[in-house]
């Protein structure tokens, strides 16, 4: 026990730096996934049919390829075509793209929960499609999507560990390096697991609070 505590004190500063990178990566990828997810879902609702096809195609393709393969494509293959992204940017883009399809599903669920009668009320007032979206559908649909969006964020936090494979020094990679150089696998991986939990449990609580708030309405 005493040895564990001594090792923990030694390893924690390194691992906490890794956790910081994990949180930064998660936050940046979350922002990208939300922006792209909203784009896919709005394209999916467009009157112009080709936009809907493109949205559907993008979602099916991205959903069908493992995240690690997408990251490798962005980090190792794109440079051969002249697009050489630094690791962090490649990680944000890869995770954000991969998760945008789940966010699109979250938003679609939220937006389709908006009562058709309210869309009729807006239509009756003479609202055009963009006004209807901005004033009725999005303000009601996005809050309805928040609980599932929170769950997706927890998954994203954990999947950000995949970015360790493209040399980003986030929590998992920082731990791997420690474990390799100290052979203290048990201590290191236990600490990593605890740190991921420490980050995800508050998020889970926030999701539950959101769900309760919507159950009340």
């Amino acid at each position, binding site marked *: 026990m005493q040895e564990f505590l001594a090792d923990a004190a030694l390893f924690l500063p390194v691992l906490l730096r890794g956790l910081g990178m994990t949180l930064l990566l998660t936050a940046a990828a979350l922002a990208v996934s939300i922006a792209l997810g909203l784009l896919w879902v709005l394209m999916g609702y467009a009157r112009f049919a080709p936009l809907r096809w493109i949205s559907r195609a993008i979602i099916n393709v991205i959903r069908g390829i493992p995240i690690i393969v997408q990251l490798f494509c962005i980090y190792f293959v794109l440079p051969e075509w002249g697009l050489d992204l630094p690791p962090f940017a490649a990680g944000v883009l890869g995770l954000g793209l991969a998760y945008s399809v789940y966010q699109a599903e979250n938003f679609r669920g939220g937006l389709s929960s908006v*009562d058709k*009668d*309210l869309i*009729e*009320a*807006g*239509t*009756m*007032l*003479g*609202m*055009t499609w963009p*006004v209807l979206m901005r*004033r*009725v559908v999005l*303000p*009601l649909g996005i809050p309805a999507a928040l609980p599932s969006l929170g769950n997706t964020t927890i998954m994203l936090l954990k999947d950000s560990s995949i970015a360790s494979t493209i040399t980003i020094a986030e929590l998992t990679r920082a731990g791997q390096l420690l474990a390799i150089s100290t052979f203290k696998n048990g201590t290191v991986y236990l600490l990593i697991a605890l740190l991921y939990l420490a980050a995800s449990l508050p998020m889970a609580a926030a999701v539950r609070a959101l769900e309760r708030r919507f159950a009340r*309405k």
Partner: protein
Amino acid sequence: MIRLRGVRKSFGERDVLRDVSFDVAAGEVACLIGPSGSGKSTILRCINGLESHDAGTIEVDGVAVTPQSLPQVRAAVSMVFQRFNLFPHRTALDNIIEGPVHVLGQPVAKATARAMALLERVGMASHAQAFPRHLSGGQQQRIGIARALAMEPRAILLDEPTSALDPERVGEVLKVMRDLADGGMTMIVVTHEIAFAREAADQILFVDGGTIAEQGPAAEFLSNPKTDRTRLFLSRVRHPL
């Protein structure tokens, strides 16, 4: 003011409207009565363009209702719904100024001043900041009427405005409608409230099987219905037992 000629509409195999024709003059109140599923609501929804009609013509102020004319038509004709359809994320006041500000482009201050006058008119001035979920059905429907009036329409369509209300709350909404009628507003009302029709309507149209089965001035229609079908319907509505 509103003119329908030979209007037809079907949902798939089902013919909901077959050959509907009638006129409502400016300032007139027309009540549509008839059994459920006869097409009364569909007539209103076609006038406002919430549904498209398959054949025939609908004119509002001389403008034919087509996909291209819908903005113009909706500016002229507002609608009140059976289930109110208020925006749940906005206060009573914000529900009313929503159209004037975000469709007509009025300044918020002007729209708010007008909305407060309308709230006064429907007896809801003290509930301006209330959210719909905190209001009774009758109160919500009065906000619904104020929201329709805020667009300064030439006519309003009311689709069974009191059918979803507690019996005790029906009167407060009918009173507002009565005041509107007396003020010269052109109205088409789908309703089962025969008493309202008798007192406020200029003409009554009996809709059955997707067509106007009988029509006439309110007093005459109610005291001296011409067809057996109308007589049967009126006696059932008046004497449910």
